[in-house]
């Protein structure tokens, strides 16, 4: 039977293949989290075991050591190319969350990413954002054009009809491609369980705590949980009262924090 997860998978594969056909300089943002690890699996499904474009990781230097170890191991296992980008100038100047969380995100993540795009002349970038994560992401298109400053014209997005996407762009823009936009957090975990995908160990509970969303150490907190298996995590998510990104401090900075960050090129 053709089930909801089958449909999500098929749609994501279709999107990867569309982008691969239409764009030359592609890359996939690999944040080491569950969503981008699921994306890597979908890429291998789409291209019969290969990852035919580089994986990009924006390193803020504030990531958990477990994340870096997991990243390096998986990249090797998948025989993928990894490009690590850092905003060295901002890091050298001592940028950190104590100078303002939104400012830190903008410098180390948004700008770090913009620098990478420019250095490598990436024309298309896959991102693992999902509509159910947060309100401004819910409004996204699958193929979302950005100007040369990476800005998102969220008030005037082009139409996207059926499975036809905007795939022609002028030379000074890049496009953000969102292959798992329609997945929910539970879909991701159900799919991880179904496909037996290996996931960063920080997601599983140890000593009564686990991470539900992974990010930088100073701004990401674990939740109280005893869920140490995939089945327990899925059961926990069915009854949990908090939103997924509750442990991400930058989201809580102001009423429209994420919209403002994202308009300027945040993921």
């Amino acid at each position: 039977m053709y089930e909801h997860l089958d449909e999500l998978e098929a749609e994501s594969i279709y999107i990867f293949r569309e982008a691969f056909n239409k764009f030359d300089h592609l890359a996939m943002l690999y944040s080491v989290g569950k969503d981008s690890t699921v994306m890597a699996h979908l890429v291998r499904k789409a291209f019969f075991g290969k990852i035919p474009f580089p994986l990009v990781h924006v390193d803020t230097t504030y990531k958990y050591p477990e994340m870096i170890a997991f990243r390096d191991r998986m990249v090797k296992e998948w025989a993928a190319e990894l490009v690590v980008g850092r905003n060295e100038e901002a890091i050298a100047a001592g940028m950190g969350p104590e100078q303002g969380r939104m400012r830190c995100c903008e410098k180390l993540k948004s700008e770090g990413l913009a620098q990478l795009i420019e250095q490598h002349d990436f024309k298309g970038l896959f991102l693992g954002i999902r509509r159910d994560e947060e309100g401004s992401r819910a409004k996204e298109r699958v193929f979302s054009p950005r100007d040369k400053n990476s800005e998102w014209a969220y008030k005037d997005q082009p139409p996207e009809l059926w499975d036809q996407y905007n795939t022609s762009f002028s030379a000074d823009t890049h496009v953000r491609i969102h292959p798992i936009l329609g997945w929910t957090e539970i879909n991701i975990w159900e799919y991880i369980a179904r496909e037996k995908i290996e996931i960063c160990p920080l997601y599983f509970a140890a000593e009564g705590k686990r991470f539900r969303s992974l990010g930088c150490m100073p701004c990401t907190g674990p939740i109280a949980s005893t869920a140490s298996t995939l089945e327990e995590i899925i059961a926990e998510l069915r009854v949990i009262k908090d939103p997924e990104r509750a442990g991400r401090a930058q989201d809580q900075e102001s009423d429209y924090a994420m919209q403002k960050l994202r308009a300027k090129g945040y993921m």
Partner: protein
Amino acid sequence: MNLSDSLKIVIVGHVDHGKSTLIGRLLFDTGSIPEKRYQEVADTCRRQGRPFEFAYLMDALEEEREQNVTIDTTQTFFQTSKRPYVIIDAPGHKEFLKNMITGAACADAAILLLDGIEGVREQTRRHAYVLSLLGIRQVIVAVNKLDMVDFCREVFQQAENEIRAFLHTLDIVPTYVVPISARSGENIAAAQGGTVWYNGPSILSALDTFENLRADTRLAFRLPIQDVYKVGTRRIYVGRVATGSVEVGTQVTFLPSGRATKVKSIERWPQGGAQVAGAGESIGLTFDEEIFVERGEVLAPSNDLPIVTEEIKAGVFWLGKRPLQKGETYTLKLATAEGSAVCVDIEERLDSSTLEVIERHAAELHGSESGTVIFALKKAIAADLYLENGPLGRFVIEDNFLIGGGGTVRDLTAAEGSQKAQVIRLDDHFATEPDGNMIDLTRSRGSIEFVVTGRFGDRLAAGERVLFKLRGPKQIEPVALLAYEHNFCFTFSREEDFIALVLFSTAKPATQTAAADIAI
């Protein structure tokens, strides 16, 4: 795991008739909103000194909340005991019609929301028209804000009559008309005592009766080729099955190239080896022989092909900033095919609110307008009529890099030489048809030619009749031509999914011996 087919629903209606509130209520009543998120909205509302706004759960952008209007389409999720739902919130304001259509295009079903006191308004009509353009047939009309009139039955009935009469003009018959209050929750998940006079289903139970129509395996097999990958020494043709299903060994034809072959294997990663693949699946295929075709070709069963065309007549809705102009060249994308298309005529330009024809043979179609448009393609493509096969019968038009509008194919002219007319020898058919004198053309496409032998005319003259089963009115023409040339008569009637045409003759039998001959 509790998985089943999901249903995508779009919620449309006039601005301020309560779409975002209804969605907030659906999410709340199905327990789909994390309590923190609810608290967050409650806090924001308190800070801004207004009562709790369900709409804030959907209208996340600052501009949307400040101006109390939905700007862009949102998708969100809830689950009933039956299945998961994706709700598409579509902006009601005219300015944001492109966002509304973006949202509505992928829906299986729609809730058309109507303020019971205000009744049918401009955007109600426009949105209903979009539903008919997109071919959405599973429709619930929700008559809202009845708490404001103490759930007065007469107010509801008046609104119901008005909307039914209007939808009738669009050929839409709403499956349900439900009296609700999105704010108080009446008839959303269940009745709450306000509408004691109503005994139909609530919104949620009505939705549970609808069907997922996105991956239809009952239609003919269509696979638009997305790309060709070289994996090892093999060429794998990849794509997403649009409709129908395919099996290893099926005799298939690529169009427009016309190359025919057999399916050798169905490829997936990490395990291949499946014998069958159905609508909605992203797959790879290999074939018995080396074939070189490109993206844009459509793979179909050799005995049930789409039409190869260089001219498309379509219902077009235009969303671009610049108008669609007669004589201009655009890029037309249909399934995975794309190419240059000249807009040769805008036959009718409609007012999409009143649906009146504003102009015939117009020079331009402006943003938010729709009409009947003819495109001439530089290169032939394979397509179906929208009513027969949705995914192969719809397309987008690109203007200046971006999608400027969409269209649904109403008529196709088969490209010259692309498909030979199907020749039907009437004597043969006539003699071999096991269930009597019946000729079934419901699976035939393209043009048909009849070759008649003398014996056929004699048998009709002897009083026999032949039933032709036709797929549509266009097939009447070749039969009528046959009747004209040979001086036969016919009658026809419209059946549920075909046209029954009976051919007979009123001529006298030529000679006694000839008639006796046939009787043997």
